[in-house]
């Protein structure tokens, strides 16, 4: 297995607050990795550091062997890393299909090519039937999938998903899980930031646990949830059996 993304001694502080402290992990190609941790653990900061929305205070991020920290989000995207936002941001006045087309313009100027890529992306997330709908007619799970389709249109090698399951009912989340599994089987590497533990257990092959900005555990989901340090961080010390 080769490492697609490598995070080395990554730190970021905001004034006196250290949000991410000396974090290391690698993402292997074709696998789903989950970044978890209690509220305020630094998950989203870590995510934004990889996506280029923030610059690290120290440390490096390597993508396919090239250093990408301090690179702007649009260039990071053009290198092959696509992200979604926790708060869904569909573009108003544009249909579902048109929303999904924008990402394709990072590699083509042809409207026709963008359209066919957008259809393909929508198909992969199960939204092809709603291509001509307006975005405000979509349900929340559909909007989350539209965010994923928008990201897929950029032809990413690595997909960063920020809480795609937040606010979804279990049956809706199950649908999303199936989509993610299919994407990973197709060779896409995925990094999830996720709160819903049950889903993480189901889809992730590797889990990185952050607490107070530092990595406290890493491994396969079953091993991680049995780790006393992880239980302490979620429930407070002394609650594990």
């Amino acid at each position, binding site marked *: 297995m080769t490492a697609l993304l490598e995070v080395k001694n990554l730190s970021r502080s905001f004034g006196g607050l250290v949000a991410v402290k000396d974090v290391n992990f690698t993402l292997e190609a074709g696998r789903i990795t989950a970044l978890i941790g209690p509220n305020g653990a630094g998950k989203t900061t870590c995510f934004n550091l990889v996506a280029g929305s923030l610059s690290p205070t120290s440390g490096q991020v390597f993508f396919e062997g090239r250093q990408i920290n301090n690179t702007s989000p*649009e260039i990071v*995207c053009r290198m092959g890393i696509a992200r979604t*936002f926790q708060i869904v941001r569909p*573009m108003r*006045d*544009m249909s579902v299909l048109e929303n999904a087309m924008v*990402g394709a*313009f990072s590699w083509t*100027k042809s*409207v026709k090519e963008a359209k066919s890529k957008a259809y393909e992306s929508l198909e992969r997330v199960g939204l092809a039937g709603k291509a001509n709908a307006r975005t405000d007619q979509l349900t929340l799970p559909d909007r989350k999938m539209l965010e994923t389709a928008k990201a897929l249109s950029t032809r990413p090698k690595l997909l960063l998903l920020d809480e795609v399951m937040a606010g979804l009912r279990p049956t809706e989340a199950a649908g999303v899980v199936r989509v993610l599994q299919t994407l990973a089987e197709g060779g896409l590497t995925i990094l999830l930031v996720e709160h819903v533990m049950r889903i993480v257990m189901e889809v992730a092959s590797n889990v990185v646990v952050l607490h107070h900005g530092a990595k406290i555990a890493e491994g396969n989901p079953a091993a991680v949830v049995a780790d006393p340090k992880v239980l302490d961080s979620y429930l407070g010390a002394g609650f594990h059996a």
Partner: protein
Amino acid sequence: MKRWLAGAMVFVVLTLVGSFADPYLISLMTIVLLFTFLGQSWNLMLGIGGQLSIGHALFVGLGAYSVGVLYVKYGISPWIGLFLGMIIAGSVGAALAWLSFRFEVRGIYFALLTIAAAEFARIMFSGWEFVGAMQGLFFPAPTGEIEFLMLRGGARFYYFVALALAALGIAGTELISRSYLGYVWRAMRDDEPAARALGVRTFRHKILVISVSAAAAAAGGGVLGLVQGSIFPDSIMGMGLSVDVLIGPVVGGLGTTFGPLIGSLTAIPLNHLMSAIGDSLRIPGLNNITYGIVLILVVWFLPVGIWPAIVRLGEAIQAPSKVWLPHLRKAEE
């Protein structure tokens, strides 16, 4: 296809107006069409690109002065003046945008910067003897003969020049919004961080849309100067002109292809009508008051503009269920 057909029909009607209307209507419609084009240039920048300018008079003025100085002082064809004006205004727009966005001045602060730049230029041109300073520049009175190479002719000739410009502006906007630029610019307008995350290089696209808009405004300004026959810094580069430019698209429908035409067709004749009524009733300023009230009413009741309201009405007549059912469903929720 239906849109192109509708556009062609409007064009035919306006051609007939130009061929048969009386001189007063011709001169009024010339101004309407010129402000349709200027509004279209402004609309491209805010309605599609998401960048607000309240100093479009800067670019209009640069275009007018390029034509004026070259023609009045050196007898050089306005065609060359238009071309030069577009290059100058496009470069000034790009430089202004580059400086502003380089230092993270954006949104409403960028809009303030456009006012400052326009006022700076107005004051500079007011004191610049070479371009006529406060006394302005005067074009020689038209002989009535049409000289196409010198872009000179009577009122009817300029009506058709303005019509051609408006048609070009509408067709150009339509083509741009259907090209990849239209998609990328609208994405950038709606949410810049989200657009960047999808690989849109927003820094250069913002500069590009402002530069294109500025160059178009300069072309409109060049013709406006020729139509008016004179150029004064206070009128061609003043705040009043910047506001006149944006009235059409705001009233007609921001970001739409036909909005600026509908808006200008509504607002400018209304202003003239009220001004005439005010004169005959001896109520000076009646036009400004009515104008203001009507603008407030339009923004209040049709915040998206007149044209989208017409489109929605048309859709409702053709297929009532499609338009109204989603609304009803939303109401139920």
